[in-house]
């Protein structure tokens, strides 16, 4: 089994017992690893109707077979469970070296069950599995928790090698918008998983080890990876733009096409001078951080001076600038970076938190929430009160208690459900779906709530990476959405980051995969695995109570045209595109997977 460690670890937090189990080779063939395998295992372990915060819920972590092997930009560990925010599956993707170190610790994956009586950190270090008592870490910010835990290792060099994923106070308070943080970076996607950790009294996971990963053809991998590094170097976007600014370059591009929303999607930003790349260069001295074996290094850190974070902190990227910025009416990077820092330290998902505040601000604007009642002036562009609100939410104080339920719950409570811009209770990322039709269709149908990392059609619709497609048009978009969703699913199962596609083609990933695994896959075979994973996730969500009815965007996107900017007058055509999308997927007109599709994908028995 080249590329794999061959072992899964099962830990019961209630009894403290653990057991090692072999990975099933049949499942590896069907799902590869990472997101696919984790979902497969989670589905077998947990009932779809389960309360995500109950003791019976489980958490499955799994790395991809290419992680840690040197394959370019393959670094992630995927954390899968049911999300208390959406009620669908949630899948968080770690960054940095955590995923690789997890493998060097000797495991492909981890199944966590039960609930610990007192706070613990699960430590998988040097072949020993331990639940380390962590009451003194409870209540601490994420960077502080990691620092204290590492200090207590008592071995400076051992601490350097240790990698951790932890929750912050938001996760401890079991907020449905809480997420995980590893090495100072928020995980991508997976809003709500922080609360699942918190409900289990699991503060975090520490990994370290010195196991080797065996490859089928190391010499071939060296040769292919060398060529891929040169190829990434030859692309402007992966050799200059991403290394310089990270994802923040998307701000201006989105704005030019009229898809950069402001004030809870009520208008589109017209001036992004204070938010774009020039402003970033001026505001921060950016330091690039590469995830394990990633030549692009798009993550950015900068110096921070704040009581919660002295020294280095993560600099805001596109998601932060849009969700915690323009969509809340905030136009200055200082406020945005402080908000992002709060999210990172408290363990809040920036997309879910941004969506929450944008909703709250609209509710206040429409006089559904009164500042006197809540003792918080919620108003688009009101920076200080916004930051204060974020702190209240993450510490569950004052009006933060109500806000912490997330944007959907808040909008319902105040009788204006349409003011929450989300799908399946997850907030829509700040690409206005009315101005980017394919991505809108993806948001409506995504298995984990709307998030562009599960279907990156914007790479063709906005960045023209493979082909140039007009974002305003709907032609061939259902095909594009299916293709990118399947591609994302298989890349997440192998361990690849989505951004690598800015410099490489999907077909470039195939030789790396084959060199590591010793297989003779073709691109089409991998895409089929992606399709299988996508359908498996759909199956879980169906059993959890979701159906085609939930594949729709909020009314604002399908009924209210964009009022201004280059995309003025457009609405989302998702209802028109859905039938074709279902047909391509082999689903019924109601969005149910047809038996023959399940059979074709080998999922009949699931």
């Amino acid at each position, binding site marked *: 089994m080249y590329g794999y460690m061959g072992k899964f670890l099962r830990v019961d937090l209630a009894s403290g017992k653990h057991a090692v189990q072999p990975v099933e080779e049949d499942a590896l063939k069907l799902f590869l690893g990472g997101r696919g395998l984790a979902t497969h295992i989670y589905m077998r372990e947990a009932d779809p109707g389960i309360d995500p915060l109950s003791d019976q819920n489980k958490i499955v972590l799994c790395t991809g077979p290419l992680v840690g092997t040197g394959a370019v930009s393959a670094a992630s560990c995927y954390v899968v469970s049911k999300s208390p925010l959406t009620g669908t599956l949630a899948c968080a993707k770690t960054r940095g070296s955590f995923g690789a170190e997890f493998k*060097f610790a000797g495991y492909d994956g981890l199944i966590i069950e039960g609930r610990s009586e007192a706070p613990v950190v699960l430590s998988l270090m040097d072949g020993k599995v331990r639940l380390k008592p962590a009451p003194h870490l409870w209540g601490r910010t994420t960077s502080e928790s990691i620092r204290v835990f590492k200090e207590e290792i008592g071995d400076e060099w051992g601490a*350097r090698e240790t990698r951790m994923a932890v929750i912050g106070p938001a996760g401890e308070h079991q907020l449905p918008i809480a997420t995980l943080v590893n090495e100072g970076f928020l995980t991508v996607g997976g809003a709500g998983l922080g609360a699942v950790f918190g409900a289990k009294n699991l503060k975090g996971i520490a990994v370290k080890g010195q196991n*080797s*990963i*065996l490859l089928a053809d190391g010499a071939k991998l060296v040769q292919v990876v060398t060529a891929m590094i040169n190829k990434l170097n030859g692309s402007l976007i992966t050799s200059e733009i991403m290394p310089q600014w990270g994802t923040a370059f998307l701000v201006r591009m989105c704005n030019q096409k009229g898809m950069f929303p402001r004030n809870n999607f009520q208008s589109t930003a017209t001036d992004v001078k204070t938010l774009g790349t020039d402003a970033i260069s001026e505001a921060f001295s950016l*330091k690039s951080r590469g995830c394990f074996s*990633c030549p692009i*290094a798009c993550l950015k850190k900068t*110096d921070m001076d704040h009581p919660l974070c002295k020294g280095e902190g993560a600099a805001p990227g596109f998601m932060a600038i849009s969700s915690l910025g323009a969509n809340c009416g905030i136009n200055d990077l200082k406020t945005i970076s402080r908000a992002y820092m709060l999210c990172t330290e408290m363990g809040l998902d920036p997309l879910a938190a941004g969506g929450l505040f944008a909703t709250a601000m609209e509710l206040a604007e429409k006089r559904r929430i009164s500042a006197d009642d809540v003792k918080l002036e919620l108003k688009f562009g009101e920076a200080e009160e916004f930051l204060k609100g974020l702190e209240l939410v993450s510490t569950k104080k004052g009006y933060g208690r109500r806000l912490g339920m997330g944007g959907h719950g808040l909008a319902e409570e105040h009788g204006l459900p349409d003011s929450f811009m989300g799908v399946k209770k997850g907030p829509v990322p700040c690409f206005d779906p009315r101005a980017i039709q394919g991505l809108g269709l993806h948001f409506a149908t995504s298995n984990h709530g709307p998030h562009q990392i599960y279907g990156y059609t914007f790479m063709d619709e906005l960045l023209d990476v493979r082909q140039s497609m007009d974002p305003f048009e709907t032609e061939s978009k259902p095909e594009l959405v299916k293709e990118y969703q399947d591609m994302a699913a298989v890349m997440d199962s192998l361990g690849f980051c989505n951004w690598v596609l800015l410099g490489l083609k999907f077909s470039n990933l195939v030789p790396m995969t084959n060199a590591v695994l010793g297989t003779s896959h073709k691109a089409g075979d991998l895409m089929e695995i992606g399709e299988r994973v996508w359908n498996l996730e759909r199956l879980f969500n169906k059993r959890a109570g979701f159906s085609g009815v939930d594949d729709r965007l909020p009314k604002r996107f399908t009924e209210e045209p964009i009022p201004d900017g280059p995309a003025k007058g457009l609405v989302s055509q998702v209802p028109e595109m859905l039938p074709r999308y279902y047909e391509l997927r082999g689903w019924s007109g109601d969005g149910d997977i047809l038996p023959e599709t399940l059979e074709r994908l080998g999922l009949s028995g699931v």
Partner: protein
Amino acid sequence: MPRIKIDHSKCTGCRHCEIACSLNHVAGVANPRRARIRVFEEGGVFFPVIAGPFVDAACTSKNLIEIGGHVYDMCLLCRASCPQKPFFIEAETDFPLKCDFCGIPPNPSCVRWCNTGALELVED
């Protein structure tokens, strides 16, 4: 004589050099603990350290080094493997490792995979 020049300001901590070294020295094995180059982080700066001589005794004194206003423990930059700093000793065999320029200069595998320019081969 060719040398590897290290520019700390350019290192992003991606550790691709470690895997390049590991793959080049032990066929088909990816493991940073078997690499002859390791990247250490201190105060937000990454320090690629290339394995030098093996010593079986630790220094009797500690040295500090100031770079750009920040004081570092010299052990961080030291290339030797010693009882105080148990790096560059192969885990499974206890065999001390030392950079060999991957056999034939001018093409050390770490330099070839370093995309940021933090590692560079120079002639002097």
